[in-house]
């Protein structure tokens, strides 16, 4: 009899411990990990015990076996005008002005290139990339005033690639945009910062027929981080936060002002 009470008691304690772990509804999308979530313009990314850094032309691997002392284990040349790096599972997607590069990460952390898709543009636009198992989404935009990125070429578009075979990415379709910059993906929802056109939210279930669900065009959007219902959107005047737990009722939660 005593042991039954003991079991019940232990069960109750256990339940309390488990429930306290579930935290609030906006906790990190990947649960209890020790790395965070980067925006799409990141050139640093931590994956497991490794830190990947892209610079203008190369990708470097640092071992974080001792997280306080990164140790460089590999350097590879990629190309030119490297803009961003994105991680999905054991893959790395590198966006550059010249093309889209895909890598798989070996067990020792070293990336090996599986594909290099050349855009063949005469002048280099800017371009972050996000991806999942099947698709990669790339934005290309023309040069900034004063030339932060790539000159006067008029290329402003969203490209969707089929990356189910990472050795042979297929360009599926291109959508014209105002001047697209950062982007973020949560399931079939694509958040796209379209500069003066603001934040656009698309249902991308069908890549050939993406559907604009909502658009907030009162600000100049630059980059986003979707966090399982909470969206951080960096704009030139504020960091906006939106609740998108109900995709049909996306609403602003707050804004952090930027001095202009």
């Amino acid at each position: 009899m005593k042991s039954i009470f003991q079991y019940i008691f232990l069960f109750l304690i256990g339940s309390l411990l488990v429930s306290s772990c579930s935290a609030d509804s906006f906790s990190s999308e990947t649960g209890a990990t020790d790395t965070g979530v980067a925006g799409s313009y990141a050139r640093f990314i931590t994956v497991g015990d490794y830190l990947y850094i892209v610079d203008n032309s190369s990708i470097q691997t640092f071992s974080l076996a001792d997280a306080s002392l990164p140790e460089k284990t590999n350097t590879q040349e990629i190309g030119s005008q490297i803009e961003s790096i994105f991680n999905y599972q054991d893959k790395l997607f590198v966006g550059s002005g010249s093309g889209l590069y895909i890598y798989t990460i070996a067990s020792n952390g070293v990336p090996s290139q599986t594909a290099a898709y050349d855009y063949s543009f005469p002048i280099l636009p800017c371009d972050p990339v996000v991806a999942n198992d099947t698709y990669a989404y790339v934005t290309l935009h023309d040069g900034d005033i004063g030339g932060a990125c790539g000159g006067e070429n008029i290329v402003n578009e969203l490209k969707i690639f089929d990356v189910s075979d990472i050795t042979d990415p297929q360009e599926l379709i291109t959508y014209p945009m105002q001047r697209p910059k950062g982007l973020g993906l949560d399931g079939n929802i694509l958040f796209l910062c379209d500069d003066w056109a603001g934040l656009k939210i698309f249902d991308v279930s069908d890549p050939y027929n993406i559907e604009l669900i909502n658009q907030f065009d009162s600000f100049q959007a630059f980059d986003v981080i979707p966090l399982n219902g909470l969206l951080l959107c960096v704009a030139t005047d504020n960091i906006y936060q939106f609740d998108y737990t109900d995709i049909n009722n996306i609403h602003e939660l707050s804004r952090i002002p930027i001095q202009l």
Partner: protein
Amino acid sequence: MKRTIIFFSFICLSFLLSSCVDDAANESVGEVQGLKPLYAAGDDWKTVTVVSSREIVQLGKIYYKDNIIYVNELNRGIHIIDNTIPTNPQTIKFINVPGSKDISIKGNFLYTDNVSDLLVLDISDFNNITVVNRIPNIYPNIEQLYPEFHTGYFECVDASKGTVIAWESATLNNPECRR
């Protein structure tokens, strides 16, 4: 004859060399918009300090972990914003890191760039953020020569003035460098 060849070689070489040099000097362009380097003298660029907060002026990249938003202030450092209550985010710290553009985190360690070096900061206690390691020269020193991703005029770098920690928009008077 030999002298003619040498002379021709010299002429050809001059052409080759001149085509490599950033032109602009040959004609005066007057006042134009461009970028100018911001310098830190000596080893000042290695100095990392933490202040309670500063206004967000020129936003860079953004990173999120455990209800905290980390926002890069382009080439100047990192804002730390407590976002436990997303309807009421609170700015709590600013880390001055000259030349910083990127952020990533593993556990209690934040990685960022300090000009050409990789810095590791212990962020386990926001009231006691410390630099625990510095890995020198992880980046090629492009920005010490010209502003990366920039097309247009810029003020030529004068290395005697120190280390370039940022490039700022400016009205330039007859700049001699452009890309």
